[in-house]
């Protein structure tokens, strides 16, 4: 599964996700990617794209849940995403990761697997890429 979230110069947010599904899947099984609110969601304060065991993202309405915590409960983005991705979903037996950005340019990329292909780019125009869990994301502060 691949995905992207962005904040543009007008302060607008967007999220997108695309997937080839699951190897050897049966019965017309559908994961979270096409389900708005589960694997993909954006409003005026937050945008999220997820990847992982999609059925848990559906059950927790993960992307929407993160954005609601940010925009309605005023929970910081990094904490809101971590609570859903690294606490709520694993507590139910699921796993995976997500990327998120808020309207102030804060970003976060939580995951609870060995690694997650991920990257980010801000005002300096320098692309940053990481694959494994031991690579520093450096996302605690807004991008410059």
């Amino acid at each position, binding site marked *: 599964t691949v995905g992207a*979230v962005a*904040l543009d110069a*007008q302060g607008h947010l967007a999220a997108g996700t695309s997937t080839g599904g699951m*190897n050897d899947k049966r019965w017309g099984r559908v994961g979270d990617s096409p389900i708005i609110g589960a694997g993909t969601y954006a409003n005026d304060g937050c945008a999220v794209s997820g990847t992982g065991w999609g059925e848990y993202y559906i059950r927790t309405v993960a992307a929407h849940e993160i954005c609601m915590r940010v925009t309605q409960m005023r929970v910081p983005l990094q904490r809101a995403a971590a609570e859903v991705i690294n606490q709520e979903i694993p507590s139910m037996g699921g796993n995976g990761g997500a990327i998120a950005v808020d309207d102030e340019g804060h970003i976060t990329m939580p995951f609870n697997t060995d*690694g997650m292909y991920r990257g*980010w780019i801000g005002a300096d125009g320098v692309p940053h*890429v990481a694959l494994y869990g031991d690579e520093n994301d450096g996302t605690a502060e807004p991008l410059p």
Partner: protein
Amino acid sequence: SPVLVIHGGAGVIKREMSPAKEKAVRAALTRALQNGYAQLKAGKTAVDAVTTAITVLEDDANFNAGKGSVFTHDGKNELDAAIMDGSTLAAGSVAGVHRVKNPILLARAVMEKSQHVMLVGDGAEEFARSVGIELVDPSYFHTEERWQQLQKALKEDAEHSRHSDVETAKHFG
């Protein structure tokens, strides 16, 4: 300031990555960031940036989307995608398509050119034709690496009498 963040899938295991694959993945992620961010620098919208970045990854066989999609149990490539514009709460998505080269472009077309939010299967592909989205022969999505992954899974299916155990081990989408 504009910001773009991307992912190419979770479940990455370091010991299973060859140097060549790692180099190719890093290069593709970098290209997706550069192309997507160029949209933002040009004053385009967040939707434009997201669409551009995802299209790069869909066209790269190293990722489970578009060209690099895995196979279903029946040996088909079955693709899904979604997009949402936070400024308007407009959204579009497609599921279970087999001939759409870039499903994220079709999801965007659903969002911008239809009254609907989610189209599936043959109907989604009929809509794609009507709005000029590129369709390809299903063989476009056939890669040897993904085919061998399916053969391995099918063999494991046959070797396990308890299907649920196998299902648990291959859940990543």
